[in-house]
């Protein structure tokens, strides 16, 4: 059948730079996002009832968990929704969906469709910072947003509980503590605004956006350090610093230090959770971890041994000092986490471009990275992202964001991703059964199709050819959507397999190959949609 010849067509690394594939990779995130918003991926037909139910169940589980985190669903109902989507409908699941839709100003139709799904994802995710401007301008009008804020404050150790079902307002004490932290860490980079927060009892637009943006908090901590010249301090070591203000009222400097200490610990936990480490994000008030130079925030608290193992592993894999990092949380950790690609350098670009001309060279470069001990997927991806970003120049930021998100997704959700891929493969296979026989059957115009892709077109004399052209163009649009769905399945499966096997070169190739093809397909889909809309 000649399948072995196929990879040569797309898999020639020599072609990547000629087609500006790096730039295309950088744009893929935006395109995929837009395509998802426009329901391009929903064009996939399904042929099997059981597969459809499986997909609903998977989706239902995620929705139930998010509704539970926001306090709309109790633990029993969440459990029921995780086991059976049908059974979930008999519990509080549907009322919870309705309440959420109402709280976010969505159409209350009881059905967790794409808009409800997307809105939930925007609120309950450490990865997604795309809050809608309307929400943050007037948070009181969107109670679910405030529930998300309460949830985040709880995860960060600033509030005692997740939002309850009868939630009415974000814990004022937790908001005050968060605002004190914003001032202490100079997180807004605007002293006047930070001072105002100290007397504001409510979350503002700025503080809310910061609270729900994990990456920005990481960047803040990566900058909140100084070199200490006090006796006993090791030369060149960085120490966290914080600012105190009399406007903090009853809060003493020592109490603020303890608060910052605990906040740093919780942020670190969240970040390691995102990186796929086995850490518990539950609110365990008696467990602490020392911060360099400060000790623990709560004397007498139990040290978090699981975090110590995470820090050791991360230090080892990133080539940092395991001895120093295992003892306490250090600013260097956040600097590493927030690392951005080096500034553009045209000579460097040229050198790197020539360095990536063959698969052999890529394999060699990535092997070097592997020898230095990168994390299984995260760091490997990060390194790839940095190198690619250097080549991509202007596109570097979006490229880094995209690959970081992808790495986190695979790393943290690898098992779920594999399940999702299995379902997706089933969907595509089932779709094939629908691709056999008539695709268009009009009195004067017929198109017959084979699953292999062969087409037979039959036109009666005197038929309206313009109309037939529109019909067959619609068919082409469907096939492009189908191809995109299959491409994405291949993309995820390839990336998953490569990353789990630590085949970094294969992973890089998967990114390049699939990004190129996906973008072409998305562009083809948009062009066809535009053409059909213009002629309708």
């Amino acid at each position, binding site marked *: *059948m*000649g*399948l072995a*010849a*196929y990879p040569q067509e797309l898999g020639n690394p020599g072609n990547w730079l000629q087609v500006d594939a790096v730039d295309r990779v950088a744009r893929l995130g935006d395109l995929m996002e837009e395509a998802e918003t426009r329901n391009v991926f929903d064009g996939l037909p399904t042929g099997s009832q059981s597969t459809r139910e499986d997909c609903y169940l998977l989706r239902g589980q995620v929705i139930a968990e998010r509704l539970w985190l926001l306090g709309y669903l109790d633990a029993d109902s969440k459990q029921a929704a995780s086991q059976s989507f049908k059974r979930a409908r008999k519990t509080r699941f549907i009322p919870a969906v309705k309440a959420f839709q109402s709280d976010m100003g969505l159409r209350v139709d009881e059905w967790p469709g794409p808009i409800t799904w997307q809105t939930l994802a925007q609120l309950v995710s450490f990865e997604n910072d795309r809050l809608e401007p309307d929400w943050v301008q007037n948070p009181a009008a969107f109670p679910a947003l405030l529930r998300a804020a309460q949830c985040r404050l709880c995860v960060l150790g600033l509030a005692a509980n997740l939002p309850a079902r009868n939630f009415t307002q974000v814990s004022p004490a937790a908001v005050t503590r968060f605002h004190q932290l914003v001032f202490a860490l100079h997180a807004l980079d605007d002293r006047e605004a930070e001072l105002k927060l100290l007397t504001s009892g409510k979350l503002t637009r700025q503080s809310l956006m910061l609270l729900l943006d994990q990456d920005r908090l990481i960047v803040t901590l990566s900058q909140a350090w100084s070199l200490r010249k006090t006796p006993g301090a090791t030369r060149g070591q960085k120490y966290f610093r914080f600012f105190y203000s009399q406007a903090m009222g009853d809060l003493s400097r020592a109490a603020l230090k303890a608060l910052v200490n605990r906040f740093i610990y919780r942020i670190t936990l969240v970040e390691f959770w995102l990186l796929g480490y086995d850490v518990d994000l539950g609110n365990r008030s008696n467990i602490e971890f020392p911060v360099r130079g400060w000790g623990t925030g709560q004397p007498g608290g139990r040290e978090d041994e699981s975090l110590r193992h995470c820090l050791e592993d991360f230090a080892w894999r990133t080539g940092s000092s395991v001895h120093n990092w295992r003892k306490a949380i250090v600013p260097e950790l956040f600097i590493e986490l927030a690392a951005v690609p080096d500034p553009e350098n045209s000579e460097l670009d040229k050198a790197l471009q020539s360095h990536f001309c063959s698969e052999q060279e890529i394999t060699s470069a990535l092997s070097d990275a592997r020898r230095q001990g990168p994390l299984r997927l995260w760091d490997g991806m990060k390194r790839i992202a940095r190198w690619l970003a250097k080549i991509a120049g202007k596109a570097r930021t979006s490229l880094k964001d995209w690959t970081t998100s992808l790495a986190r997704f695979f790393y943290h959700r690898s098992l779920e991703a594999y399940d999702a*891929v*299995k379902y997706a*493969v*089933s969907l*595509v*296979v089932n779709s*094939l059964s629908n691709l*056999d*026989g*008539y695709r268009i059957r*009009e*009195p*004067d*115009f*017929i*198109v*017959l*199709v*084979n*699953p*292999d*892709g*062969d*087409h*037979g*077109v*039959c*036109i*009666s*004399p005197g038929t309206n*050819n*313009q109309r*037939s*052209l529109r019909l*067959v*163009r619609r*068919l*082409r649009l*469907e*096939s*492009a959507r*189908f*191809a995109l*769905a*299959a*491409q994405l*399945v*291949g993309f995820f*499966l*390839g990336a998953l*397999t490569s990353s789990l096997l630590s085949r970094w070169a*294969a992973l890089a190739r998967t990114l390049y190959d699939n990004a190129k*093809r996906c973008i072409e*397909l998305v562009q*083809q889909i948009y062009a066809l949609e535009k053409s059909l809309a213009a002629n309708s």
Partner: protein
Amino acid sequence: MSKLSEAVGKLGDHINDLSELRVQTVTGDVKAVISKNKLSDLQDLLKPSGTASSSTASLNLVLDTTIAFDGDSLNFIDTDLATEEVTSIHREALESGLNQRKAIVEMFKSLLN
């Protein structure tokens, strides 16, 4: 057998020949085709080139494109019947077929890798 293996097996069941893609455009009495359910049945209705139509061969082949796996293509065009509009329809069907085949090959490729 895992679900994935089953899925791969089913995928193979649907696919007979990916070595080439063929798109044919014919003109004639559509009613003759309506009774056919498979594309292969269409071949029976094509009248041999240069012969008059009969009850069993009522369709005229206007455009026929075959694209081999290595990219080589073979085109047949009846210049008397291939108007600009019919050619456009044929081209769109060809693009549709290419997308469909590409989708299937991508699936195979990722599953075999």
